[in-house]
């Protein structure tokens, strides 16, 4: 079954080396991007822990820490999806496994979807903040 799916779907794909190389390169760079993201998350975590230790007992920057935790969680989620996508695309093209390749591309689409949804949420928050600012400003002026 697996052999059948590999040979029937990837026969022509193997011929088109250009497309295969492009997908491979894309996966490679997406992986680099995700790894750098993971390292950045690690550094952010370290910095956050260090600042928490330094300001321990002063309750200073607690809202800042909450924002940091949220951004770390989002970054971790996005990079995990991107890493999974890159890994699956790489394995799919290397072993001519259509299922892996499908999973990879589906994860790549998921990465863009999650990123898009986060952007929508950020935009909504910005618009709400702007509206609140305008309302507060108008109340103060009257």
């Amino acid at each position: 079954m697996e052999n059948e799916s590999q040979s029937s779907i990837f026969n022509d794909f193997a011929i088109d080396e250009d497309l295969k190389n492009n997908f491979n390169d894309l996966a490679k760079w997406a992986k680099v991007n995700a790894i750098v993201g993971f390292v950045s998350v690690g550094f952010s975590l370290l910095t956050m822990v260090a600042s928490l230790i330094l300001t321990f007992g002063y309750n200073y920057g607690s809202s800042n820490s909450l924002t940091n935790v949220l951004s770390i969680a989002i970054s971790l989620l996005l990079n995990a999806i991107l890493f999974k996508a890159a890994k699956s695309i790489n394995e799919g093209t290397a072993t001519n496994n259509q299922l892996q390749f499908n999973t990879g591309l589906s994860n790549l689409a998921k990465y863009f979807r999650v990123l898009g949804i986060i952007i929508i949420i950020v935009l909504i928050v910005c618009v709400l903040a702007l509206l609140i600012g305008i309302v507060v400003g108008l109340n103060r002026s009257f």
Partner: protein
Amino acid sequence: MANYKEDLLTTFGIETDGEVQQSLQEGAKWAKFIAICMFVCAAMLVIVVSIGGPLLFRVFSQFNSGITALGAISSQTFLLMAIIVVGLGIVVIYYFLYAFATKIKAALLSQDKAVLNLGIKNLKIFFIITSIISIIGLLGSVTTIFNFLL
């Protein structure tokens, strides 16, 4: 016509059940949305700084006592130029994401393998640029942390 479409899909290595096609289409849709949002953000950044630049600079200089009145104008110009460069940088980077989205959509519509290749290449360039920028940013953070510790 239907046979021709199926032949090209097979040449792509794309299953006729359309799973890959659907993923590419969805990815392209969201990529286009993200790119357009970033273009708007870059434009707003440049517009806000161009219009409210002097006010922003006054606020900025209140927090930075090192800026003297003599150097204020050149610093203001520098700040404006830096933000314009950042805005242009965002546009250039996200142009590749936008190109990926439009080319993938066009490739899926016309079943053109060359256009699909171009789309994938654009996404690759986008990832290359963002990776390099992330690495530079990471190195900057590491340097700052080490400078703080030493």
